[in-house]
């Protein structure tokens, strides 16, 4: 393992400190317990808080700021944060309209946020994101993981919250976006958790992991490496099949947001090549890509690979995606 670190036990705090320094106009860092809040506390709105294991940067701290999150709680690398972090963050940012937690659907994240929610002395609600359609035929919600689609959920909820909307309205929008979003990822290499010091999984020069999770969890199956168009073709099929199984049938030229997300070690050149193919293939399924996002938005440390996320838009979602946002990792209109 070769990484820019001093000591595996300090990597998180050193990195958070750098982040907070580089974006001191946007965020404030609090340590022990660790959480980050907007530099200027927002008032008269639902407080939007997310969090999860670290190693997915810019998720979530990179999305703190106007039009998105009020606070983020980073856990250790790939380990969900603990309830005290969420409690302190909520205490710091709540503004009398309640607290909405956005949580990726992993047992650890769900339980830690749940315990925080139970202890929280204010009105609160939780949106669980579960956009990963890699795992087929899963009758258990636990099987459906929250991945890059979380960024879209956070953006839209953040936008609605900024208008002063009520807690339940924000939750309803988040659930809707999540229900209209599907993702699937492919790994070319493993990631290496700094504290473990070795790759999470072994994979040969001729293999890919189809449906990999953002922690390097195994996916649908190990496959042989093929040309990009074939791999992306399978990803697009998986998403279309998933939409159908959820009774979402894109109608003629249905507008959609296509997010091509890099896992951390895949060059932009390849991500745009993937985008090119994916956009063409979705077109063949009555889907018109009207909105796009291409880059490293939900990473898995230093994994080479990428995920494709499609969100079926409607007027409400489009409005909240397009609205101004000013965070470290996503910024427009402001």
């Amino acid at each position, binding site marked *: 393992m070769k990484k820019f670190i001093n000591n595996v036990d300090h990597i998180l705090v050193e990195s958070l400190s750098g982040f907070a320094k580089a974006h001191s106009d946007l965020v404030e860092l609090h340590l022990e317990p660790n959480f980050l809040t907007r530099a200027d506390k927002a008032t008269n709105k639902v407080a939007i808080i997310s969090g999860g294991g670290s190693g997915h940067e810019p998720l979530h701290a990179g999305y703190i700021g106007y039009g998105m999150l009020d606070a983020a709680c980073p856990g250790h690398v790939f380990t969900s944060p603990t309830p005290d972090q969420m409690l302190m963050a909520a205490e710091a940012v709540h503004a009398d309209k309640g607290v909405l937690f956005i949580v990726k659907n992993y047992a650890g994240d769900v339980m830690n946020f749940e315990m925080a929610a139970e202890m929280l002395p204010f009105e609160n609600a939780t949106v669980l994101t579960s956009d990963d359609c890699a795992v087929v035929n899963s009758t258990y919600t*636990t099987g459906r993981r929250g991945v890059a689609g979380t960024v879209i959920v956070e953006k839209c909820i953040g936008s609605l919250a900024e208008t002063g909307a009520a807690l339940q309205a924000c939750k309803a929008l988040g659930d809707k976006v999540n229900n209209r979003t599907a993702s699937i990822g492919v790994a070319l290499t493993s990631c290496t958790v700094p504290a473990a010091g070795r790759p999470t999984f072994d994979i040969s020069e001729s293999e890919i992991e189809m449906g990999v999770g953002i922690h390097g969890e195994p996916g649908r199956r190990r496959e042989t490496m093929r040309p990009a168009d074939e791999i992306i073709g399978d990803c697009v099929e998986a998403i279309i099949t998933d939409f159908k199984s959820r009774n979402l049938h894109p109608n003629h030229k249905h507008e959609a947001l296509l997010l091509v997300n890099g896992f951390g070690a895949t060059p932009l050149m390849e991500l745009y090549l993937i985008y090119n193919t994916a956009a063409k293939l979705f077109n063949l399924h009555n889907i018109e890509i009207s909105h796009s996002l291409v880059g490293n938005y939900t990473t898995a440390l230093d994994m080479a690979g990428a995920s494709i996320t499609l969100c079926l838009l409607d007027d409400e979602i489009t409005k909240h995606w397009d609205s101004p946002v000013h965070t470290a990792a996503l910024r427009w209109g402001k």
Partner: protein
Amino acid sequence: MKTEFIIEAALAIQQTILANESTLESLDREIGDGDHYINMKRGATTVAEMQTDLASLKPDEALNKIGMKLLSTIGGASGPLLASFFMSMAKVLKENGDESNLKIAAAFAGGVQAIIQRGKAGISEKTMLDVLIPVSNQFVLLATQNCNVKLICATLIHTAEQGMLSTKNLIATKGRAAGLGERAIGHIDPGAKSCQLMIEAVCKLILEK
């Protein structure tokens, strides 16, 4: 049960976790995200460092303090589950007392019940519960039958091992391995392994007394 014993047990648990680094790490790498050893080590080390703070507390207070500390230390799936275990166990002990094996068994069962409620899982879902539920049942049964503590411990070591091994051929339906389907078969659940190790360590401590 004495607080002194709780501290001894905590140190024994830390020792067994550290001694099984590569096993725990590779199990979670195979069907999880590879952090289970790091999480358990962080928890075990933190509790071991609480020695002096715990020494003056009553057993139930000590267990509750351990639970609360674990809640803000471990994170992940195992954090809230193990924390709930200790906090609930403490609560039952506080209410019922700890003067008999049966009362301790009941407290243990209360802790396991808290894990079931928090994680909404049951037996055969390929989690730590495949160790904890049989151990808890056996513990209560043996205590009800007035078995002596050494026999109880010897039996529970065996029960825990059986439970841990039983996860090998299961498909996971809870936790991070739930997405794996058939691919999870052949791999022991990391949480089940660490629970088995902890139970073994504490039982051996008693057996060696």
